[in-house]
């Protein structure tokens, strides 16, 4: 194996697990936006998920429950995501509040609550055990690709399985049709007997669960610790990825991989000794978001036409 071969292999095999948090949150956000709700609170939900998911493995380091700690963490994070999704639905669907600003409110709330509880109950930096890698028998032995794609912790497979699953849900099930109708033609959907607001509530709860799970992945599998600024805008990047992926799960997966590869590439460059200021390296993903959004100009035409507009059945348009 030549040296460049090894570097490329490292970048790719690191990039795949790095994309998981973004992928999960972004697939969740896709459900929200398909149903017509623009949820910027994704960032806040991820913060809460990251913090709450971190708790069980942190407190149950030893003892009879230790083997299930990660599973409990993921479950709690998803439950918290559902609750925050419900809160956001109450504010934006029932109270019909302006979604962009409400999202920023939810972001501050999630970030603040996670930070407050963390500082009070834990305080310092403490690590947890990550999930061990689980090589898929057979597939992981494929030369080169096997290690990149099939030798990761189980959550990676779950996340990538969510891509076809969420495609199937959106495009092949009655509920998915309702979700898409609620986002593109809520009035028509309503006249066909679909309860638009209920569908939006459901989509927000599902999206919240996925964002919470993404957050938990971040603290449990990726960083293996929690800090106030762990999420660092990934929730917002996840929202941008939905635009980039043109509201299709496959496109979103491409976007998530692009971002994680850019990140690992930047890490590799730094490790490789090519010097440029650390700050510019950190900046890179955020600059990339702005570039990606600028290039995705025409994508908006394909997006849900009622994205961001609360549905009010008593109002004429």
């Amino acid at each position, binding site marked *: 194996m030549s040296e460049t071969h090894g570097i490329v292999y490292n970048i790719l095999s690191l990039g795949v697990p790095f994309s998981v948090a973004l992928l999960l949150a972004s697939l969740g956000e896709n459900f929200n936006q398909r149903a017509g709700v623009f949820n910027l609170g994704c960032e806040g939900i991820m913060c809460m998920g990251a913090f709450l998911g971190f708790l069980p493995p942190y407190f149950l380091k030893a003892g009879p429950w230790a083997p299930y700690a990660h599973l409990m963490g993921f479950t709690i994070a998803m439950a918290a995501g559902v609750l925050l999704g419900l809160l956001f639905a109450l504010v934006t669907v029932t109270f019909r509040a302006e979604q962009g600003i409400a999202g920023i409110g939810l972001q501050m709330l999630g970030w603040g609550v996670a930070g407050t509880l963390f500082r*009070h109950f834990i305080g310092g930096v403490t690590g947890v055990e990550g999930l061990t890698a689980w090589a898929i028998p057979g597939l992981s032995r494929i030369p080169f690709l096997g290690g990149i794609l099939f030798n990761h912790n189980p959550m990676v497979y779950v996340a990538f399985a969510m891509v076809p699953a969420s495609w199937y849900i959106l495009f092949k099930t009655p509920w998915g049709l309702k979700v898409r109708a609620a986002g593109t033609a809520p009035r028509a959907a309503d006249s066909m007997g679909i309860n638009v607001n209920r569908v939006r509530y459901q989509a927000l709860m599902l999206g919240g669960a996925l964002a919470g799970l993404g957050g938990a992945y971040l603290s449990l599998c990726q960083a293996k610790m929690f800090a106030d600024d762990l999420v660092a805008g990934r929730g917002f990047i996840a929202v941008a990825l939905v635009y980039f992926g043109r509201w299709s799960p496959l496109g979103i997966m491409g976007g998530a991989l692009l971002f994680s590869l850019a990140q690992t590439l930047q890490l590799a460059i730094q490790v490789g000794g090519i010097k440029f200021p650390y700050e510019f390296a950190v900046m890179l993903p955020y600059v990339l978001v702005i570039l990606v959004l600028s290039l995705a100009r025409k994508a908006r035409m394909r997006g849900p036409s009622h994205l961001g507009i609360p549905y009010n059945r008593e109002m004429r348009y």
Partner: protein
Amino acid sequence: MNKFKVAYSGAIILLAALAAAGGGALVLKAIGANPLEIYKTILTGPFTDMFGMTEILVRAVPLILVALGIAIAFRSGIINIGAEGQMLIGILAATATALHLPAAWPKWEVLPLVILAGAIGGGFWAGIAGTLRARLGVNEILSTVMLNYIAAQFYTFFLRGPMIDPGELETGSGTPQSMRLPESAILSRLVPGTRLHTGLILALVLCVVVYFFLWHTTWGFRLRAAGAEAKAARYAGIRVEGSLVTAMVLSGAFAGIAGAVEVTGVHHRAIENITSGYGFAGIVVALFGALHPAGIVPAAVFFGLLLVGADMTQRSAGVPANMILVLQGVIILSIVSAKMYLNNAYAQERAARFFGRFFAKPASDEAKTGGQA
């Protein structure tokens, strides 16, 4: 009719305030603090001495400036979440200007230039998001959030590299901070022995300026028209895209001024964490002040009180400083939720009918006329 409307609005606002306080109380309860005690400390603690009281105003100054800018943007139909980053770029520009102007120049020449530099820096940074929105349809919320992260990195890069105080390198402590500003670039103190500075006067003057600009000039009218109903404004011949960029640049300029005032008035050098969340708190202040200068001033003073009070509880009761974010978050959520019921004649009529059942004749009569008004 009027009496009911007042009671209705009052009740909605009260409910929103209760919801916000209740949300905060839940979190306080979770960390084992007594919410009532904490709220009492936050709201009354700062009034115990002169320093605390002036400190409220010290916090209110950047909040007023940031909120004015955000109000301009929101009224013009573009949402600016990037005040935090715009402040940082404004601070960099203002600090660099102050350090490069000849030290012999008098105050009245240096300070306006420094503050202008801050405004240009902040305006430029916001202009990026404004232009991207107008030309390429990039969602301005996402782009301003991203520009916040980018600005934060720029800021630390400059403080650690090109702008670091040479003294820090000599002593080897390497604290990332700029050189101290020359005396000619420092806002004088209003009350000796406290941190209250003349920036307060500037902020109040700018409130009046913004009021006249938005409500008594054609330019301001165009911005508001584009924000209120873009289609109608376009039909009337207003260049909506252009006004979005203008509004964003103005909005950023105010955040930049806030940064410049903060560095020349309070810290006297660019340091880390200098914005202390004013960019985000300013959003809450602007919303709380109903996007109007006359509302923003009291709202900023109230939030100044919250910020000082939260600092005190951190010291006295060990409540983490992140608590202020929680409060801001629940306040935003309750304000935007309440808004929908405040200017909604239909919801109001329904409430009137509902309560009319309990209060016999007068209330329901009022409601009938209220519904038609």
